[in-house]
């Protein structure tokens, strides 16, 4: 096989791997983006940018991952973009997590009314947490990420992440009890 044919085959294999990554984690990146920016329009922009950036650096990330899952790397890209988004909009009013509507539930009407109030309260109290605590909870509960994955996405140690999540839940409970 010639050198250019080998290059083309490598490139095609890389593109296929990226497509798999995209299909497997589109919902994760979108969910994370949505809970960080609070509206679908900006969540779409952020998700699109995250995948474009991921595509640009995919070959290197794959090489350096040593076979470990790439989801934390992908979420880290979305995390950095979301931080830039909030920094860029610091002078303007921002749509924060308070703007997020609790998802609808297939339950009885009474349960919906009661349940949605409680969910609204949780979302409202989440906004009182520091950014890193709130982000860790979004990764844990919206994306079902393990402590190790969250640690990699946030660039922290496993131990520090465990403490971060524990303190986030504790603070959230205290905030809920204030009502």
């Amino acid at each position, binding site marked *: 096989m010639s050198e*250019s044919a080998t*290059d*083309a085959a490598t*490139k095609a294999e890389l*593109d296929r791997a*990226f*497509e798999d990554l*995209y299909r497997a984690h*589109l*919902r*994760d990146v*979108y*969910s994370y983006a*949505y*809970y960080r920016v609070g509206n*679908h329009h900006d*969540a*779409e922009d952020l*998700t*699109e940018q995250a*995948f*474009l950036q991921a*595509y640009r650096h995919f070959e290197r990330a794959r090489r350096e991952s040593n076979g470990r899952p790439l989801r934390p790397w992908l979420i880290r890209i979305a995390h950095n973009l979301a931080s830039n988004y909030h920094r860029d909009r610091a002078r303007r009013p921002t749509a924060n997590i308070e703007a997020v509507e*609790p*998802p609808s*539930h297939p339950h009885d009407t009474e349960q919906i009314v009661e*349940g949605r109030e*409680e*969910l609204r309260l*949780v*979302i409202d109290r*989440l906004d009182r947490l520091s950014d890193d605590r709130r982000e860790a*909870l*979004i990764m*844990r*509960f*919206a*994306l079902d990420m393990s402590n190790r994955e969250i640690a990699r996405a946030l660039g922290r140690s496993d131990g520090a992440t465990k403490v971060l999540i524990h303190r986030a*839940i*504790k603070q*959230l*409970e205290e905030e*809920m009890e204030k009502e």
Partner: protein
Amino acid sequence: MSDESQVRLEALLSDALRPIEPPEDFASRVETTLSAITEQAAAELSSWADELSESELESLRDPRNWVRPVAAMAAGTLAGGALVIVGMRRRRRSTGFRATAGSVLRSVRPSGTAPRR
């Protein structure tokens, strides 16, 4: 914090922070953008390699001759990026209320009929 209340709060968090499905048209739009980029990158790479003669390939082995191709690639990448952004903006402009209203008007108005002033 008791174990029971922690379990309850975690259940509430799981409910409040449910995964959000991206809109269907959005997923296909991103796929189109990504395929366009990969095809464009592959085409640029192959046409660039095809255009090089043996002597040019030989001279490229000398790092002092790398400036021009690197600058050309950077310009190509920037142009590609700009095209993607323009494409995205064009798509965004063509959706929304005005575009929808325009297409509805076109479908109900007989062809060749100008809107009444």
